[in-house]
């Protein structure tokens, strides 16, 4: 008998938090099989990919450095996803954050005034947030004014953002003393985020990410806005009757997501990178989508999910160096995690049953009435 799915009366809370673990475990098992197919010892390869990178303290701080932009982007995206606003252009908003904040750093570069130096970093962070918000405002405007699908517009804008950054560092923002490489000047001390721990690259951005998590948790759990986001997402019609404006929700969620992604962009540029390059992110904005889902669209969950996905970046790098695996392996692991998660999420809302479905029996009137009552 084929198994069939029977809806649960209520989604299972226990499974909501266990399916991410199932997904990660299934990814590891499948990963072992893939490594074996590619001619590597599965044990060694998994160790190289998932343990070696974080085996020492420096490696662990690198994990936090990689998790920082993921957390920032994912927290913003999660708020939107909760309200059914599908912004998938975080990568572009991140890039614009880098352009705005990094542009300011280049503009202020070499200024002697102590006041300007003291203000450089805060202004860069603000400019980064504004850059991301500005980029997210475009799909918000097109959605609310013209009903244009935000999935497609925000994604198209990602390509435009990448090209814009590339234009700038190939042209006006190229370092004049840089042997014609498409790179900006190296930022001065005043434009770099302070390192929290000497000898590592762990920077202030990590704390900003933690702060964003706390703030997002507070907003979602304790404010009217958080409640509205939830209602708009789960019951749009009820939200309409309650007078929560759908348009306002699109604007608010997109601006929050854009601002946080922009912050992630400037934090990358003023942190580990230290200058503007033609490409400033290895797809953090896209990976953040996976982080948001794996973290169950919950700020605290996102914190843990970001560590898992950050490990996939570090592991991919180590596997490239030590096993000669192609870079694409990171994307394969990231995609697999999301597949397994979405597939196992069926268990949250449905029970797997074996045997003949109740609906196949010739329903008597009494039974039909009973079912209708249960459904009500």
């Amino acid at each position, binding site marked *: 008998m084929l198994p069939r799915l029977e809806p649960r009366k209520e989604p299972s809370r226990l499974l909501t938090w266990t399916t991410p673990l199932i997904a990660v475990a299934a990814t590891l098992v499948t990963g072992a099989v893939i490594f074996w197919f590619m001619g590597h010892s599965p044990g060694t390869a998994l160790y190289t990919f998932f343990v070696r990178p974080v085996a020492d303290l420096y490696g662990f701080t690198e994990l936090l450095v990689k998790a920082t932009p993921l957390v920032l982007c994912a927290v913003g995206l999660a708020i939107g996803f909760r309200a059914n606003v599908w912004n998938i252009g975080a990568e572009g908003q991140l890039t614009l954050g880098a352009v705005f904040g990094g542009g300011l750093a280049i503009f202020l570069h070499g200024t002697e005034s102590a006041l300007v130096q003291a203000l450089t970093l805060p202004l860069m962070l603000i400019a980064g947030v504004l850059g991301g918000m500005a980029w997210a405002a475009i799909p918000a405007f097109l959605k609310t004014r013209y009903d244009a699908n935000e999935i497609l517009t925000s994604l198209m804008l990602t390509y435009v953002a990448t090209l814009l950054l590339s234009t700038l560092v190939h042209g006006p923002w190229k370092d004049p003393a840089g042997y014609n490489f498409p790179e900006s000047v190296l930022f001065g001390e005043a434009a770099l985020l302070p390192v929290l721990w000497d000898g590592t690259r762990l920077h202030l951005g990590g704390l900003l990410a933690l702060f964003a998590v706390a703030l997002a948790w507070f907003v979602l759990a304790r404010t009217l806005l958080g409640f509205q986001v939830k209602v708009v997402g789960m019951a749009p019609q009820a939200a309409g009757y309650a007078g929560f404006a759908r348009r306002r929700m699109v604007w608010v969620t997109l601006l929050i997501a854009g601002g946080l992604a922009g912050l992630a962009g400037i934090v990358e540029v003023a942190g580990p990178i230290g200058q503007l390059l033609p490409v400033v992110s290895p797809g953090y904005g896209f990976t953040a989508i996976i982080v948001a889902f794996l973290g169950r669209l919950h700020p605290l969950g996102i914190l843990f999910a970001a560590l898992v996905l950050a490990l996939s970046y570090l592991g991919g790098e180590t596997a490239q160096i030590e096993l000669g695996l192609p870079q694409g392996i990171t994307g394969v692991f990231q995609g697999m995690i999301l*597949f397994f998660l979405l597939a196992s999420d069926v268990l949250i809302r449905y029970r797997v049953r074996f045997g003949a479905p109740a609906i196949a029996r010739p329903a008597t009137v009494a039974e039909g009435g009973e079912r209708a009552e249960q459904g009500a």
Partner: protein
Amino acid sequence: MSPDLVFVSVVLTVISAATPLLFAATGELVVEKSGVLNLGVEGMMLVGAVVGFAVTTLSGSATLGILAAVLGAAAMSALFAFITLTLLANQVATGLALTLFGVGFSALLGQPFVGTPVEALPKLAIPGLAAIPVLGPLLFAHDALVYLSVIMVGAVAWFLYRTRAGLVLRAVGDSHDAAHAIGHPVVLVRYLAVLFGGAMCGLAGAFLSLSYTPMWGENMTAGRGWIALALVVFATWRPLRVLAGAYLFGAVTILQLHAQGIGVEVPSQVLSMLPYLITILVLVLISRDQAKVRLNAPACIGKVFHPSA
């Protein structure tokens, strides 16, 4: 070159640029008409491109390569169908996963083939007709996939609006509960539609790596999968409008390349933004008239179907 020849060569490049969009958008149109939104077009195209390229290089047969591309991309779409239709997952999220996975997976498969040359698909000139001046080379001297892309649009239009099976597919997309109630196999119809969409993305990818460039490079689709998705909206789910839209976009792409060629004083990156900006523009122009969109949009698009609901 004589003006005639310039005209012919420009139009030929437009046709080439339009063909992958035409395949992918026509396939996605059928998927969406059945009530499913598959955002994995970009990922499926990439897998089609790399599989088509690899099999052609290894076997020496482009026919085998194209078949493999179709099967490879269809296998990706089967994964999507299983997760969304059998396991009832969110279609938007699953489609995104398919694209993210496809980008990485194609890079992994394609690594040994980067920089390998391949012979472009042969042009099949139709005897007699191809000799007509101007029109001959424009219409009757393409490779097999270009002919196939146009034939597929016609076939899909005929299938959707002139056959019983097409009517069932549209019914499933417009109201899966009603279609289920009168006994149509909703899930089966959607599986078939999704597989067809995957196969078409495979053809789109194979055309890119075997005819348009012809070579394999990581992420070589460069957003064409997403433009194809936008084209379906632009066409308000009508096959013949997809044809018009694809050629319009092909023209924009080529215009941009030619502007770079004749030395327009704008950085090349700015011109490269054009196709994406135009996509946004046409989306806005179409979407602002919601009455027109609703007329043809499948009502059940993206909704999960479970017979108990």
